[in-house]
């Protein structure tokens, strides 16, 4: 469906994308995971023909994006990172403005606007000005504004930035249902939880290069360990950081420590040791490793750095 071949993009002296090659299959939910500045948005902008690459080719359904830009855009829906809406217009007026750009017959457009507003539970607010909407409502409207022409491909560039958990879940459910209906989705994020939850296949991008590519399970196989140990943060565990570090690499999260076991790690020895320190078993939990851990292993940095 989408073929990206040796794509390079430079901004003066900075190489934003360095010979990236990727393929996204029809009806796939593909995630592009990487920290800020990794090149995710640049790749999205190239996919939609907003910029031209300095090298390489992108084809969607066999059509070259740089050559048939305007035609290809009819096949693509793009959900930008920013809330690309007119605050002074109502939800319905916004959808009419953006829908008309795709040359949709008036009757059909009206019908699709109604369907999409219902799908994201905004129909009742259709006549309210967007400036009166909450952040989550604006995000949902921002998303359906890209779907009015019924595109085959939906490109979502970090569509949940600044959204509360409830609205985020609603957006995830909506995107999952769109994927099930047959839409190919490319989704960029720097939240590994989002990528793990939504995407059937993930590309990890850093400094303009794809450093890992595959399903979540395949990616996690690349890790040198199979499990991590989460330790709740409290004064007792904090005092024993040095002891934990003898068993592997210790990462400090907001509410817990995450221990990546070193080679030769023995769980029995670990528990015996912490028992001596007066640490309760209930503070410790075995976990499946995350993409965050993989990113750390591959780059030496964390996704949020």
């Amino acid at each position, binding site marked *: 469906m989408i073929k990206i071949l040796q794509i390079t993009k430079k901004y003066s002296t900075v190489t934003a994308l360095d010979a990236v090659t990727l393929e996204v299959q029809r009806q796939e939910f593909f995630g592009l995971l990487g920290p800020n500045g990794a090149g995710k948005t640049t790749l999205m902008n190239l996919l939609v023909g907003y910029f031209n690459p300095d090298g390489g080719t992108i084809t969607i359904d066999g059509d070259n994006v740089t050559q048939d830009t305007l*035609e290809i855009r009819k096949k693509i829906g*793009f959900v930008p990172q*920013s809330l690309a809406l007119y605050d002074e217009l109502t939800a319905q007026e916004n959808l009419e403005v953006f829908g008309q*750009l795709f040359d949709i017959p008036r009757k059909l457009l009206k019908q699709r606007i109604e369907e999409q507003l219902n799908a994201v539970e905004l129909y009742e607010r259709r006549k309210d000005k967007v400036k009166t909407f909450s952040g989550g409502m604006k995000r949902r409207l921002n998303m359906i504004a890209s779907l009015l022409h019924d595109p085959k491909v939906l490109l979502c560039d970090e569509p949940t930035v600044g959204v509360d958990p409830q609205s985020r879940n609603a957006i995830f459910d909506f995107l999952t249902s769109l994927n099930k209906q047959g839409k190919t989705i490319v989704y960029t994020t720097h939240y590994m939880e989002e990528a793990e939850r939504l995407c059937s296949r993930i590309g990890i991008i850093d400094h303009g290069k794809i450093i890992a590519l595959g399903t979540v399970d395949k990616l996690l196989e690349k890790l040198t360990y199979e499990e991590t140990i989460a330790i709740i943060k409290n004064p007792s565990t904090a005092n024993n950081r040095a002891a934990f570090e003898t068993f592997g690499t210790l990462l400090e999260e907001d509410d817990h420590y995450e221990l990546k076991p070193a080679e030769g790690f023995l769980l029995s020895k670990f528990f015996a040791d912490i028992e001596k320190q007066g640490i309760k078993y209930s503070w410790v939990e075995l976990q499946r490793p995350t993409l965050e851990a993989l990113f750390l292993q591959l780059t030496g940095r964390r996704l949020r750095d």
Partner: protein
Amino acid sequence: MKQVYRLFKSSYRIFWNDKVSVALTFIVPLVLMTIFGAVFGGSDSGPQGIRIAVLNQSTSPVAKSIESSLDTIKAFHVIKSFKTDSGKTVIFDTLSIQEYVRNEKAAAALVLPPDTYADTSVGLYVKFYFDPKNDMEMQTVRGLIQQAVFSQFPSVMAQSGLRQAERYLGIKPGSAFNRNMASLIHKYFKVDTNIILHPSLSNLRITNNDSARGNANFLNNIVRIENQQLVGKEMKNQWATRSVGGWGIMFLMFTLTATSSSLFDERRSGVLMRMLTSPVSRTHILWNKYIFNMSLGIIQLLFMFVFGWLMFQVDIFSNFLNLMLVIIAASVACTALGMLIAAFSQTRQQANGLGTLLILSMSAIGGAWFPTSFMPSTVQFFSKLTVVYWAMEGFLEVLWRGVGFISILPDLAILFGIGALLNIVSVRQFRKGHIFD
């Protein structure tokens, strides 16, 4: 107090980093002060080159003296002949000089008729024809002409007195009377007795002191200046007819700069990007902006003229088609200016700052605030490069003079030309693409 000081310091830091605020605080006033200074202050200030047609039909030395003194007035460019259609240079007559003013080739005309001053006269008589297209300029012209005419009066009165004395009192008693009269004139009008007793026109100068002004009040009753307004007499509201175009064009430029700069808001909000990821190209977006702004400009100008008609009885309908043509041409040029400002700015704030600077400067030098003839000749040259100047000319031609299509053709051509030129530059700048990055 420390906190106040810290806040005070940070206020300056924020202000100083906001280049637009700095420009609006210092550069805009500086530019305007320079323009005003050039117009109203400085050694080379004051009106220059106002075209005045002069016809001297009198043989009297006083008329010759008035004519000569007009030649020396810096504000005037005195014209005494004109070229016919066949290219022949012809001295004015009473009809052709009026036609010359009517055709806007001179702001006013002074005719010194055969009876300006005769042996039997006790005062002066001149005819003044004028076109008050620009009220401020015309008031200045009248003041200077009156000054030129009145400045001759002390010697005229002295000569007249001498002649009357000689006629009725004889030569010898007349000599004594002359001396007495000369000393009285000297006492009250500060004119040298030698000049009075032995008048020589070459000694006469236009004076501009208090006594001369005092004399003017007195002389007003004796000097007869026959005024005749040649253009615009029938206007119900001359002031509004003259002003509506200037006001309209200034507000039009403000509106169009603001709407052109909306591109920045659309870029910031991401709407521009959304548009560019739909089947819309940059060219489509620029064309949309241009056509929208131009149509908005036409509507705004039309609205202002209709308001002028309703409120001030400005006659917009007797020459409506030509008025529409000028409105369209002015909107084309002003829209192009707005797009140019947007093209060369990086942010809306920059566009607003640059727009304010350009609009105020162009309004000042283009003649929207005061006549261009009040400016130094170099500034007058630049005023002809502004949209304001040509738009105002066009509106005055149509509303004030009521001229037809052929007469406004140069104004239209220049406005459309300015529009085309600015558009070419804007498009080149937009293509470099910073607004779409």
